[in-house]
């Protein structure tokens, strides 16, 4: 199983020279199974770039198939969906899983996002690809040779936020975003869910030292502690803050790596970069 980042920025896309190396597109991560199956987690603007790449494959001819897992429906995780050409080509199949909110089902949220006041698509009915929406549950399911597990780890107001674990051939990738570890129960659930994963992709836009007012996210230090406690091999922090430049991320990465080396921690620490391929 290979993983590739297509969007690693949080909150809002950040085009600009100072963000180019890590990338300015919002959340989108792709997993390619050994048999060629495709699982995509979140559809921020990174989904547009992924979509352009996929047009060169079966998707360009209307024969593509993808499973899209949505963590939650905030802008930076869903807004990229309607733009790539592949979603408008009949024959392509999109299986979309994600949480219903107490304000409406996942399908209703996407349909609202595409309503004419916000989008020239005029609603889901006009998406040309075959698409299905399925409320996510904790029941594991298979996508080709990949096994997907999901966990409702936290919630914000009306929106539950789900974490995903994708496994193939005894290797696992875990994706946790937009969570604040406000009590031991959430922490323990996360440790259990991430246990023994080869790669943990975890949102961490700020460090503890920065003391930024943001109630929806844990800090870089939390992600590191979680990865260590769960015996994760490699941590990729993502959902980078829009103000975080490439140079700042470089500095941040080397400072935490040094710290981990001093502690003799075996954890591999990295900040996710657009385009980066990780062999899980």
């Amino acid at each position, binding site marked *: 199983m290979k993983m590739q980042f297509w969007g690693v920025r949080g909150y809002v896309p950040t*085009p600009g020279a100072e963000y180019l190396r890590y990338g300015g597109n919002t959340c989108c991560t792709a997993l390619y199974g050994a048999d060629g199956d495709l699982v995509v987690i979140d559809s921020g603007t990174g989904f547009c770039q992924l979509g352009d790449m996929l047009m060169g494959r079966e998707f360009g001819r209307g024969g593509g198939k993808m499973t899209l897992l949505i963590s939650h429906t905030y802008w930076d995780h*869903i807004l990229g969906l309607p*733009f790539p050409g592949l979603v408008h080509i009949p024959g392509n199949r999109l299986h979309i899983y994600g949480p219903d909110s107490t304000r409406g089902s996942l399908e209703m949220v996407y349909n609202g996002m595409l309503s004419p006041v916000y*989008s020239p698509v*005029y609603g889901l009915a006009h998406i040309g690809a075959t698409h299905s929406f399925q409320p996510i549950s904790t029941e594991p399911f298979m996508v080709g040779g990949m096994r997907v597990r999901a966990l409702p780890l936290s919630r*914000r107001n009306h*929106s539950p936020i789900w974490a995903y674990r994708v496994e193939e051939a005894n290797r696992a990738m875990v994706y946790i975003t937009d969570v604040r570890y406000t009590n031991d129960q959430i922490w323990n659930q996360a440790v259990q869910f991430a246990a023994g994963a080869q790669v943990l992709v975890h949102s961490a836009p700020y460090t503890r030292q920065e003391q930024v007012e943001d109630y929806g996210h844990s800090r870089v230090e939390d992600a590191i502690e979680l990865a260590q406690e769960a015996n994760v091999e490699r941590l990729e922090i993502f959902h980078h803050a829009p103000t975080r430049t490439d140079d700042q991320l470089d500095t941040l990465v080397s400072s935490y790596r040094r710290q981990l080396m001093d502690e003799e921690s075996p954890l591999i620490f990295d900040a996710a970069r657009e385009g980066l391929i990780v062999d899980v």
Partner: protein
Amino acid sequence: MIVRIWGTRGSYPVARAEMLRYGGNTTCVEVRVGDSCIILDAGTGLRQLGEALGREARPPRTINLLITHTHWDHIIGFPFFEPISQPQNRINIYGLQRTQSSLRKTIANALSDPLMPISLEDLRAEMTFHEIHEGLAFQLDTQVRVCTARANHPYRALAYRIEADGAALVFIPDTGPFHTVLFDDERIEWTGSPTPNTDEELRALAEMRAQIVDLARGADWLIYDSQFTDAQYTRFPHWGHSTAAQAREIAEEAGVGQLLMFHHDPHHTDAQIDAMLEELQTTCDSELIITAAYEGMELRKGERSS
């Protein structure tokens, strides 16, 4: 009048090396006249504009945000605009009046659960919504005159003219041409070949075009939808965007000083936009100055350089 361009891209923001020069942020233009601060559209460029305003010695406390329409690329920067969270600020938001939903509700719904964790009531700035329509002329801060017209875009959009201090800027980021597809609130079904227009549609299109030309008449600068190449337009006439040549035709007829190609296609690289611009310039036989808007571009008239 000072005009600064913070976002030029259409449809969705693009963060790519080969698009840096024209820029990947979606539509946002700042207009300053004396103490007045007017912002056209709230695309992703608005975030950096907010930061720049914060760095000013005396940041404007009243901000007039004029929105052409509420498609995502025109509002996505709004929650990341710092001045909305500062209690001393007054933000006037202007946009199209609709029977389907109030402007306030459209913005509020986009910002709130389950799409975002923000409630308009929690924002610290004083926020006032003004629902306007086409064919309007009104004053802002006594010294600025704003006129509106209707652009030919799915679900309708506004076009703005800002006049002050002997200068005029016209902003039409999203409009299709006026010879065939008439956009209104209903979706246009595109079957691959144009359906013949009724006489009534052709009259409505001609009228809309006349209003647009009138709005742009004699302006110093016309910022105009130039998303498409001719080949793209042929494939996507139902998207409500113009070609660069169609933009030039309006600019020439309205006798504007300078045309700024705008709402760049998210797939067009700097090199492609350069080529579109060059083609437009070399085939131009009028006095019109033709440029392509880029992020960081500044235009001035009648204000002392600081």
